[in-house]
């Protein structure tokens, strides 16, 4: 319990720091925030529009008042309105967030399903054919940026083989099969970078745990090789694998920006890229905040899962 509480407190503290930083960033940048936001096109903004924006964002009030309002709004789930069309940002995020999550979780699932067995096989047959093959493929997979994978997949499967559409989206309720077809390539692109990470971690930790003395004890008991592997090697290697997966899911939350862009997947990232192009700071701020909340939550889950997997963490 104590452990859960400690983790939760540190997660809340991080979120507080992140939201404060997001608020301050606009003011830290040298120059007048309103002018900066309006000078996107390279032209000097008119005095009136600067004034209008200033009062719209409340930039004319003292900093602390702005901060209190900002934090108050966040706590109520109000992330402000978009510069572009005045629509509430939170609503748009709520609509798009599940699509991004679906993409990431599918990719993570693929990575685990491919990475764990291949890592196990490579470790058990260390130095053998499969180890060599998987290790080479994984170091190559680690070197391909996601947007290159995505673009090349489109080139191969949509342009040359004409098997799947180059990108797009249909909601699951509308047409489940088509939905999954659209999901396939973007999820696979992310998995190409994530699987090698899982593979390497599994391989390393299996090799490490195979040498542990409790494995020898388990064999000395007379346990069968399969039980020894599953209960005393694979089970123990779950903790480091979960940790690494959690850390990389966070990085992936950023990486999806590119994948969603490549495949026209209407998740959070498409909205983010557009907001950045338009210098729609409230929208960018809102999306980044939500993604950071997710990031922190994922890490919290990982920590809790870690505690579940390793009793030593729980009791200390």
């Amino acid at each position, binding site marked *: 319990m104590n452990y859960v509480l400690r983790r939760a407190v540190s997660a809340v503290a991080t979120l507080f720091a992140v939201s404060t930083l997001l608020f301050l960033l606009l003011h830290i940048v040298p120059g007048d925030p309103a002018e900066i936001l309006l000078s996107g096109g390279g032209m000097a903004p008119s005095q009136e529009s600067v004034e209008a924006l200033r009062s719209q964002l409340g930039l004319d009030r003292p900093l602390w008042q702005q901060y209190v309002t900002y934090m108050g709004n966040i706590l109520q789930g109000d992330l402000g309105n978009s510069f572009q069309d005045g629509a509430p940002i939170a609503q748009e995020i709520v609509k798009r967030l599940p699509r991004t999550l679906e993409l990431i979780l599918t990719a993570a699932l693929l990575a685990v399903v491919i990475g764990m067995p291949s890592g196990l096989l490579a470790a058990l047959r260390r130095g053998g054919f499969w180890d060599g093959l998987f290790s080479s493929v994984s170091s190559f997979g680690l070197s391909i940026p996601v947007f290159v994978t995505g673009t090349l997949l489109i080139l191969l499967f949509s342009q040359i083989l004409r098997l799947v559409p180059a990108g797009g989206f249909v909601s699951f309720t509308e047409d489940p099969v088509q939905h999954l077809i659209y999901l396939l390539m973007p999820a696979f692109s992310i998995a190409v970078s994530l699987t090698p990470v899982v593979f390497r971690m599994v391989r390393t930790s299996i090799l490490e745990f195979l040498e542990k*003395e409790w494995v020898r004890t388990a064999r000395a008991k007379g346990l069968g*090789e399969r039980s020894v592997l599953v209960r005393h090697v694979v089970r*123990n290697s779950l903790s480091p694998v979960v940790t690494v997966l959690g850390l990389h899911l966070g990085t992936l939350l950023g990486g999806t920006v590119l994948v969603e862009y490549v495949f026209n997947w209407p998740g959070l990232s498409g909205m983010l890229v557009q907001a950045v192009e338009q210098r729609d700071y409230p929208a960018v701020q809102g999306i980044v905040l939500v993604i950071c909340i997710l990031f922190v939550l994922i890490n919290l889950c990982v920590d809790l899962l870690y505690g579940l997997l390793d009793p030593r963490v729980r009791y200390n």
Partner: protein
Amino acid sequence: MLRHFTLIFAVAFLLLIGGMAVLAPLLPLHDPVQMDVMSRLGKPSLTYLLGNDEYGRDIFSRIIYGAQASLAVSLSAAVLAAIGGVALGLLGGYFQGWIENITMRPLDVILSFPPMLLALLAVTLLGPGTGTLTVILAILFIPAYARVTYGEVLSVRNLEYVEAARALGHRSGRILLRTVLPNVAGPILVQFSLVVASCIVLESGLSFLGLGVVPPDSSWGLMIRGARPYMHMEPLGLLWPCLALVFTVFSINRLCDFLRDMFDPKASVAAFTLPGMLAGQRLSRTAHAMSRKAEPDSLLQIRDLTTEISTPRGPIRAIDGVTLQVRRGEAVALVGESGSGKSMTGLSVMKLLPRRIGRIASGEIWYSRGEGENARAIDLAPVPASHFRAYRGRDMGMVFQEPMACLNPVYTIGYQLVEAITVHNNVSKAKAEEMALAELKRVGIPDPERRLREYPHQLSGGMRQRVAIAIALCGQPNLLIADEPTTALDVTVQAQILELLEDIRRTSNIGLIFITHNLGVVAEIADRVVVMYCGQVVEEGSVEEIFYSPRHPYTRGLLASVPKPEDLNSGEKRLASIPGTVPSPLALPPGCRFAPRCSYSTEACSVAVPELEVVTESQAARCIRWKEI
């Protein structure tokens, strides 16, 4: 072979692309921004080596100038981040306290942003461009360096000589710099190449989104962005920048792996496999267990057993022609310095030799099953390890040195006991738990109900060793091999564990092989003693014979190095120790292996390996001069 090839490729590719990027203005390249409408999406030709892009610009020249932009941004960001990160890490690690908080804590906040997002945030505020890109990438990667440095400072600052210097009033800051910087140089270099690769990926990604390098400047990401809409007409224009990007990142990663192996040799010790060992680890002779009528009273007879271990410098004989015997209810102590092969003997009997690098090369291990007239002896040596689990636990159990490391930290004591019980008995879970409780009581663990539900880390060392013994006894074995079971424990607990083992041996009439380097322990527990040196038995006999009339100079040396009460009282006599060190198994002396350290050795000792000669009915020694000793 493949590893070398990829490394050579990586270095060559990086030199080529880096060199061309640096020398780009001097090379006879087309102007990378000059458009040529006539040759839009042109195929590769002699004029335009890789063809033309959607504006008719020369792709080859744009790749080179793209490399220039990418490398300039990434290298300068990586250098800036390194300077900032190392400085913060040094400050935070050295001063600790509030300075640590203001230097290291903010880095955690940076780390709680996915890198791509922080970059996008900065672009929103500062606008796209190479300047913004460099600054933001530098900030993003400061934590990576800071953490490496910080960790190193923490480990160095408590070293004795640094503390000593501080106590003497030296400027420990300078000492720290002098010790820390060389130590972190390796990891920092590895980190540097990782960061450069990450920067290249991020830069190209941002440029691909149109938020990085600003057109008409060239960047690989921008080229991919530009060629994408035309991929159905000219896929090559898309492929070139993709290939350049992937090969560059791959080459840097490969170089990084190489650097890591160089600075951390432990990480890369390759597996060395004995010839023919991958195929199931079995002996070539026969896979069937040979059996014969057992000699009365005999439990285990090892004959001429040789076990090989492969090492990076070639195979060694960890044990070389060992012969020994254990009777029912008898305790045999296996004694010798580390490296004498005593543990390997135990592991060979259990078929628990190190995976893939250890094997029994020759010899016999006769193990007797059954009672009286029906007793049969089976030769276990040819039984493949994969078939051997039928014997483990039920016929022979083993207890190891480190009780903490021998129990799996993620399972309760109860789980690990029940697991051992259900392997050997077809019983329900409730019944197994009942039996587990009985086992814990048998090894004298107080409050066993509670202990069953606890994890290994919640128990004391002595408790854990009792649990390990209970686990080994679950299958009612006839032979227990205890490999230094008391070495990791303090003296009072040692005595309790010895008492427990002695008690179990009496009540269950099991044979005990007790492996130790501590002769003091031997006198308390053993009936007979086998002394090993360099993989060979050098002397064996009853406890009385070994302690009162040792015939081998090595045994005498071992005995002399045990502190005796009268030595402690006399005060002047120093504790004797055997001169010299155990020879490397790769360079054994010819003849008697102990000769170089032996005060009795003569020229004859180095001619041939002496035989184990019979001294009395129960004593034997491997020394040509045993009669004179």
